[in-house]
């Protein structure tokens, strides 16, 4: 592996087996590794770092009258990706056995939604049913849903690409919320 990765060529097994490990770039076997990347100067022509301002550009899809909530998708500490490994661990499965979406206390009160009841989320792409977790950890108008469960969040998300990085805008889209009822 290190033969085909020049910036890690110096990361020998011998170095890796020390408790301190080795920080890349480590281009040669004598190189001590690079815990701090830019010290005396940056890796630019004149050695100075370039800072530039960015104008605010809103996401491709923002909340509106039809889909009045902003959905954020994201990770939980208890699971990794699609849970192919973490859901096989009994304790991690016990902590988070199914998908949920955090909804703000005021929004929940207004919509008559109780903690741990099922709600239906809809977007321009589709819809899904998930558990509601009523909390003050998200602001009013915002919903945070876990990305770890195949049956759900992907029905809602928006795959439009960012013009510069070409990353799909999967972490942010507009949704509506309905009560389904029952726990």
């Amino acid at each position: 592996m290190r033969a085909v990765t020049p910036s890690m060529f110096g990361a020998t097994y011998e170095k890796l087996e020390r408790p301190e490990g080795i920080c890349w770039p480590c281009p040669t076997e004598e190189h001590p590794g690079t815990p701090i990347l830019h010290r005396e100067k940056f890796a630019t022509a004149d050695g100075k770092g370039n800072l530039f301002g960015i104008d605010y550009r809103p996401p491709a899809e923002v909340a509106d009258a039809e889909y009045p909530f902003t959905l954020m998708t994201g990770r939980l500490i208890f699971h990794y990706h699609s849970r192919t490994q973490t859901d096989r661990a009994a304790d991690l499965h016990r902590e988070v056995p199914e998908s949920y979406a955090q909804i703000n206390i005021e929004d929940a009160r207004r919509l008559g939604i109780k903690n741990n009841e099922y709600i239906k989320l809809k977007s321009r792409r589709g819809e899904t049913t998930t558990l509601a977790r009523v909390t003050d950890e998200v602001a009013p108008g915002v919903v945070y849903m876990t990305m770890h469960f195949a049956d759900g969040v992907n029905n809602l998300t928006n795959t439009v690409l960012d013009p510069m990085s070409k990353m799909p805008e999967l972490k942010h889209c507009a949704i509506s919320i309905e009560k389904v009822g029952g726990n």
Partner: protein
Amino acid sequence: MAAKGDMLYAWAKDAEIQKKGECGGAVTALLKHALETKMVDAVVAIKKGKDLYDAVPTVITNPEDIIQTAGSLHCGTLLIPKLIKKYLNGAKDMKLAVTCKGCDAMAFYELAKRNQINLDNIIMIGVNCGGSVSPVTARKMISNKFGVDPDTVHKEEIDKGQFIIEYEGGHKGIKIDELEEEGYGRRSNCRRCKMKIPRQADIAAGNWGVIGDKAGKATFLEICSEKGANLVNSAQSKGALEISPADPKGIDIRAKVEKAMFNLGDEWRHRDFEGMGKGKDRLKLMMSESSKCIKCYACVEACPICYCIECSTKKPWYIAPGVLPTSFMFHLIRFAHVSDSCINCGQCEELCPMEIPNALFMHSQQVEIEKMFGHIPGQDMTPPIHAFVEEKAERARLDATGTDSIYTNIFTDE
């Protein structure tokens, strides 16, 4: 013929064991003899893994392999008995000989009290322990304080209050006090430890008290049980071990060293516990540090007092699942169930990925409970404070106190 209570100097007959082992290799010789004569089915001890800083627990069934465990490893910060409970079925169906630091010996008894280990199947060879050093701390200390490349060190030792290293090109010793003032040195719990000579084992072995021409060439053995006496006598009569009575002056010196270590332990206890504050301040400290918890369960898995198959911390009516920061209730449950029996082995703190001072917190409670109830964990089979009661009789007793505070002398100093 050695008997329980005897104090001896002992050394291996075999030249290789004498050389590779500490102080004449008596412990290594005893382990090999126990295995060779089939007194035990296996030996559980520590051997050097990748390097001097990598202590690997190992189960040995071939007597020729025992030599791999010879020599001390002060970075051996692990606790063996819980590993035996988890992976060797608690020694229920095999006989084992095990080297034990003070904390290992205490852990064996606490596990046995809870039916997790069959002590009848274990020969405990206790070793004096001045404390262990975490591997990364040891390497940083050798690099920064000793100015030596840790990879060039081939022997480390703690002797006469100094941490001493031998490396390619020389050797150097620095006083432990000086190292610990700067945050290096032994693990925090080790500094507070007062189980220096583990007499609850079958044999207590070490180098304190070996004086005269045998100094550095013999191990001091205190025979603590009949089992220990049988092992020593068998090893001696079959030519694996040589023994001679310990020099009375040496016995005195050993007692003095033990006392000095106790005093050091007391000083650190005073310092560590005073540093936590009292009352609400102490509680605030515990709550804020414990809020870093990510529920990795390393503390529960490693703790010799924790053994429940259905852990109370996993009941959703105590602690809502999937919620972070972890509720302080998690730690309160640990405190409630463990603190009367905490042996200050330090595993909970050593293994915590969030560096919560778990052992400090648990130990600080254990010392208070010991003051109140007089129960000392890890010494023998005395059961812990929690006890079965007959419900009606106990309820009547509580009613009769006229208060809903079960013990009326807890919150006031008497």
